[in-house]
């Protein structure tokens, strides 16, 4: 029996394997051509002085120049400042909002989720145009009206190096929390009710339940949002490019924008490639550290 069954089975597996390769063929081709090849190519270009024909090999020059470049370090500092100011605040804000949405009726929950998510649907270009006018430096500008109402005076928000970074941060605070609110809320609804029950029997207050049950239960979610938030923030490019162009005096030049400028403004492809790989390394190290120190007791 087994002698007959075996070849049939084997043939079937072989046939299935062929289907498997056929099904991933297009995806693999696209991946190889538009992701894998560019990554390898970036590595090669980073050691070259790139020219369309006959690039010359320059060793580590692009890297050493990058590390000597004051602007590169300034961009790193700007990126870190932007990340530190936006990501934790966004997380805290989303956490607080999702806790407040929780006791509401299902219908109201959906309404608020939709409202907070709406800015994520509008294009970044459209939103940056609106914010550009909200930050109008003239006294009639909307944001200036708000600040002068509170006695804080009027400022040249995007045009002065003291306020440009803050303006970009404020914009991020008010338009990028929809996704994290929805994810937090889903996680909150997934917490087993028996934990609360046990805590109530012990006479735990609302804040005790929040601190001893909700915060630990949501740790994987927080870690996920933190890591993806930091990764996204380190690559930030569009708002800085469209709203300040990196200025004034490079006060808002982030690494993403610096790489773009080197590549497509000055056409220094080698330098841009080297800097992008340094950025990739930094992101990898930071993500690793976050998992190592915050993900210790997180199970997946």
């Amino acid at each position: 029996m087994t002698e007959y069954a075996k070849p049939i089975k084997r043939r079937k597996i072989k046939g299935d394997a062929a289907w498997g390769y056929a099904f991933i063929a297009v995806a693999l081709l696209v991946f190889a051509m538009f992701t894998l090849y560019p990554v390898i190519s970036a590595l090669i270009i980073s050691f070259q002085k790139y020219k369309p024909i006959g690039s010359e090999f320059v060793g580590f020059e692009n890297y050493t120049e990058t590390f000597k470049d004051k602007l590169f370090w300034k961009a790193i500092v700007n990126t870190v400042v932007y990340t530190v100011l936006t990501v934790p605040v966004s997380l805290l804000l989303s956490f607080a909002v999702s806790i407040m949405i929780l006791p509401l009726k299902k219908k109201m929950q959906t309404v608020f989720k939709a409202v907070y998510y709406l800015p994520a649907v509008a294009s970044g270009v459209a939103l940056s145009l609106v914010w550009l006018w909200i930050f109008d430096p003239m006294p009639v500008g909307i944001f200036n009206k708000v600040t002068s109402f509170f006695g804080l005076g009027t400022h040249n928000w995007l045009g002065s190096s003291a306020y440009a970074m803050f303006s970009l941060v404020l914009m991020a605070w008010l338009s990028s929390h929809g996704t994290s609110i929805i994810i937090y809320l889903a996680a909150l609804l997934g917490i087993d009710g028996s934990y609360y029950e046990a805590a109530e029997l012990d006479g735990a207050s609302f804040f005790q339940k929040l601190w001893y049950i909700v915060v630990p239960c949501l740790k994987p979610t927080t870690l996920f949002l933190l890591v993806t938030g930091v990764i996204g923030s380190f690559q930030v490019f569009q708002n800085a490019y469209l709203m300040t162009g990196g200025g004034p005096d490079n006060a808002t030049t982030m690494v993403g924008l610096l790489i773009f400028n080197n590549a497509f403004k000055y056409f220094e492809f080698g330098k841009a490639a080297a800097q992008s790989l340094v950025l990739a390394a930094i992101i990898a190290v930071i993500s690793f550290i976050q998992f190592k120190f915050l993900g210790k007791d997180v199970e997946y």
Partner: protein
Amino acid sequence: MSLYNPHAGRPQIRIARNTVLMIILLAFALATLFPIYYMIISSFGEPVEAGAMDYKLVPSSFSLESYKFFFEFSEYTYRWLLNSLIVATTVMVTNVLFASMAGYAFSKIQFKGRAAIFSLLLIAMMIPYQVTQVPLYILIVNIFEIQNTYTALILPGLVTVYNIFLAKQFMGSIPNEILECAKIEGCNQFQIYFRIILPLSKTVLAVMAILTFMDNWNTFFWPFLVTNSMDMQTIQVGLKNFRFANTTYFAPMMAGATISALPMFILFFSLQKYFLEGVTVGAVKG
């Protein structure tokens, strides 16, 4: 048995508490929606230079002149919308097709190297796009020499690793028994994919389609890099050009922004369920 005290005996306390929460949430919602509200009401203003006007939070007049101004800016304004539609639709269709095929293969078909290939895809997902942007530009512009074509706009996004991952995650939860039954009935792998997997994965594919369409409608960077004539630009790139050409025309700029965002708002309000589901699907456990 929940985070909040149910105040079972005294419903008025619960109502009061929820009202306070609602007010805080509403205030935050207003701050979130303000830019969008401001964009839409300002777009109905007259197309005059900004110096001659004051910003109003409540519209005093209603005029469509600014929309006319925006469309008359270049003869290609309608073309930008059409280009965005063509690119976003094509990329959406190819992603649903190829990502669902690959997702099925990675989750249900045994073949050599499956795990290795899939891990390679996942690792690649963590590489920032800045790394690939320069070589990709060189590939499209210098090697293939196809800049300023639909092919250049569509090809790199044909199928994304994220969508493959999404499909694989979902299809992994389809019970194997169903597939084995189909096999015994004499279905080949393509028939299983087409008649069983696709109908069972409708939801995740709808989510994928919508999010992919939105991403590509809203994307600015790649079309901005590979297009160099007005007639091939997408609406986002066109909007940016309009801004730099008319830096002081406030209302027309808002009209343009509204036009670029409106299709997504309509899509969002009609398919809200899928959008909101799309955020959590495949994102987190626990």
